[in-house]
Each structure stands twice: as structure tokens, then as C-alpha cells.
């Protein structure tokens, strides 16, 4: 395998389970999907959680389909081509951002074409539109070597995936492919180390507003 098989920091089991359940906001789902595409151990674990989802689905109380459902299904199916060839395998060994990569469709021209917005000396960011139906914010942060982010906690759960370079903090050393899945109360001051800028993909979730989500869901569903 490649150097990325040496990934040392992984999402917590509950985060991976929420990802498999389809319960993460889009920003965090993109971060986890990207890590999963690079990490064999988490790929296996995510598939296990999906199998738990399948067991749950099998155990759901069924709701009878409309009487004509099977007929209308075959009427629809008759008009559709069936896929013929197996999908191409995802290149799981690098951030080459080929078309199948989870992040590729969000960064159309790759990491090198990004127009960074300076935030402070040695620090730049760009916000990536990834607005799902649960609010969350996805951003890329670029930290020059030797630059330290001021000590902070995350009021919220935050996911950070290292795409390039590396940093070190109170929690440990983080390099390409490593994912920091930190509790809100962890206090840390990451310091970018090495020769190249450290580029991280960061998801923060906004407060959940599930009543609103249900309201917003139901309305357009009715009008669909």
C-alpha cells in the first residue's frame, strides 16, 4: 500500500455510524467520505455500519405499496437503459482528485486552482458551498509552515482532514489522510510543520434545527 496506509487518526465510531446512517450534515459527510476513500480500515467499518442500516431496514414495519405500484414500476423500467459496465474503481491512494473522488466535484479544478482568501499572515481559507438539508459549513484552510493557530476550543464538534502537509498539536501529529474528530471541549493550538503549507478540509456543524428541517422537508415534498 501507499504511505496513506499509515493513517493514525480516524473518525470516532459514532461519527462513522452517523455517516453510514446518512445522518451527518453535508459538510461533515464530505469530510468523512474523503477520509473513507483513503482509509481501508474506515472503509471496512463504514460498510459494517451500512450493514447495520440494512438490518434496520429489514426490521422496519412495511407500509403497503399502492396496488398498481409493480405495474407502474415495470412501465417505468421499460423506458430506462440498464447500466452495463462496472463503475471504475476509485483511486484510493492519493488526492489526485479524479472524477470519482468525493471531493473532486466540489473542487472542479483541483487543489492548485483554488483562489485563497487571506485571513491572517500565513493563513488563508476558502469556503466551499456544501449546503445540505442539515446546516453545516465546509472550508479549506491553508497554514504556512511554522504558523500556529491560536489556542482554541470548538464550541461545536469539528472534523478536520489533512489533505497536504502536516501539523502537530496537543492531541498528536497529523499528516495527509489523518482526521481529527475532536470533542468541543478539547483545547488545542495546531502548529503547521514541514516544508509545504498544511491544507486541511474542515467541517463545522451549525446548531441543529430539526423541527425546521422537518417543516422544510414536508412542505416541498407535498408540492413536488
Amino acid at each position, binding site marked *: 500500500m501507499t504511505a496513506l496506509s499509515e493513517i493514525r487518526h480516524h473518525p470516532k465510531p459514532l461519527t462513522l455510524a452517523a455517516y453510514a446512517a446518512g445522518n451527518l450534515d453535508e459538510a461533515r459527510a464530505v469530510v468523512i467520505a474523503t477520509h473513507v476513500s483513503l482509509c481501508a480500515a474506515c472503509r471496512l*467499518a463504514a460498510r459494517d455500519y451500512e450493514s447495520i442500516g*440494512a*438490518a434496520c431496514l429489514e426490521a422496519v414495519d*412495511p407500509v403497503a*405499496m399502492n396496488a398498481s405500484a409493480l405495474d407502474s414500476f415495470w412501465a*417505468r423500467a421499460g423506458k430506462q437503459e440498464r447500466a452495463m459496465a*462496472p463503475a471504475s*474503481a476509485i483511486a484510493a491512494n492519493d488526492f489526485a482528485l479524479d472524477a470519482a473522488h468525493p471531493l473532486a466535484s466540489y473542487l472542479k479544478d483541483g487543489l492548485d486552482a483554488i483562489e485563497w482568501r487571506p485571513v491572517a499572515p500565513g493563513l488563508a481559507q476558502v469556503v466551499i458551498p456544501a449546503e445540505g438539508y442539515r446546516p453545516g459549513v465546509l472550508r479549506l484552510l491553508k497554514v504556512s509552515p511554522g504558523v500556529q493557530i491560536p489556542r482554541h476550543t470548538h464550541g461545536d464538534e469539528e472534523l478536520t482532514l489533512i489533505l497536504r502537509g502536516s501539523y502537530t498539536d496537543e492531541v498528536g501529529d497529523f499528516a495527509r489522510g489523518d482526521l481529527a474528530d475532536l470533542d468541543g471541549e478539547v483545547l488545542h493550538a495546531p502548529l503547521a510543520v514541514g516544508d509545504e503549507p498544511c491544507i486541511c478540509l474542515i467541517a463545522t456543524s451549525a446548531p441543529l434545527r430539526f423541527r425546521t428541517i422537518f417543516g422544510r422537508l414536508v412542505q416541498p415534498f407535498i408540492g413536488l
Partner: protein
Amino acid sequence: MTAPGPAPRAKTTPEGMNALLLRVAGDADRDAFNALFLFFAPRIKSYLMKIGAAADLADDLAQEAMLRVWRRAKLFDPAKASASTWIFTIARNLRIDAARRAAKPDLDPNEPALLPDHEPEPDQLIDRSSRDEKIRAAFSALPPAQYEVVKLHFIDDLAHSEIAERLSLPLGTVKSRLRLAFEKIRKELGDCVE
């Protein structure tokens, strides 16, 4: 119209489901597909109604999910996932897409899918069917309190804090029930993931 297939109940083992889906993949076997449809469509409909879709829309979306199963059957590889798990991921992704479209009706059709299908080559030689059978058995054997929170998370699409609110439990209790449930299931697999 094709006659309904064999009674699905006898086929609900991972092996049985795999066999049906492989018949669909290999021979476009409509009887095999009908058996899958009769088992999964009413459950996917129920799954979609849990997030607020009206019955007729859920019916339509469940058909859409089964259409994806029919059209993509040739992409199914039992070494990567059992049929049941594969169908769950299709239903889950469709539910996310539908919720997303509902929240943003003017969504650009070229916007990326929320949960990309991750279908890399199998990393190890794993017998996915027997692994999934163990997961199913361990899931069914969970104590009721743990079984309930797992189902609320995976089927009702409730986040940890939402489960806590629904059951009037502290958030920490919900998280520890989920953790215990997953640890118990992983223990049955006999390997140590994480």
C-alpha cells in the same frame, strides 16, 4: 405482466438476497426482481415516510429506489456488500437527495451527490455475506433500549440530540447506548475495528 416471484420471506437471508440480485444482474430475471421489490419497496416506503414524505410521494420514491436497483444491478458485487446492504445504501442516498431537493428546490442538477458511492476494490478477502449475517444476528439480539436508539438513528434519521429529545434521555445516555450497541455487534465479528 410478470407474475409475482417466490415468497420473499424465505429469501431474507443475506445469501438468499444475494442470489436474487445476482439473477437480476445476470439474466435480468424479473421474477427474482419482483421478489426483491415485494420485500424491499414497502420497507423503503416506510423508511421515506419517517422523514415526512407523504404516502404517495414515498411510494413514488420507493419505486425510484427500486429502479436504481434494477438499472444498476450489474454493478452489484457481493464481495463488496451484501444485496441488502447495497439496497440500503441506494435507499439512503435517494432519501438524502430527496431531502436536499426539498430544501433547495432550485438545486443545480450538476451539483455533486451528497454521499458519493464509495465502491473501491475490496481491501481484504472478506466473506461479506457471513459478516452481514453476524451483524444481523447481533443487531436482533441487542437489548431493547439499544435496539431502539440504533433504529431511531438509522431509520428515523434522528441525530443523537434528537434521539435524546424524542426519548427524554440525557444526550450522554443516547451516545453510550449507541456505543455499547456497536461494540456488541463488532465483538460478534471477531475482529477489532478501531
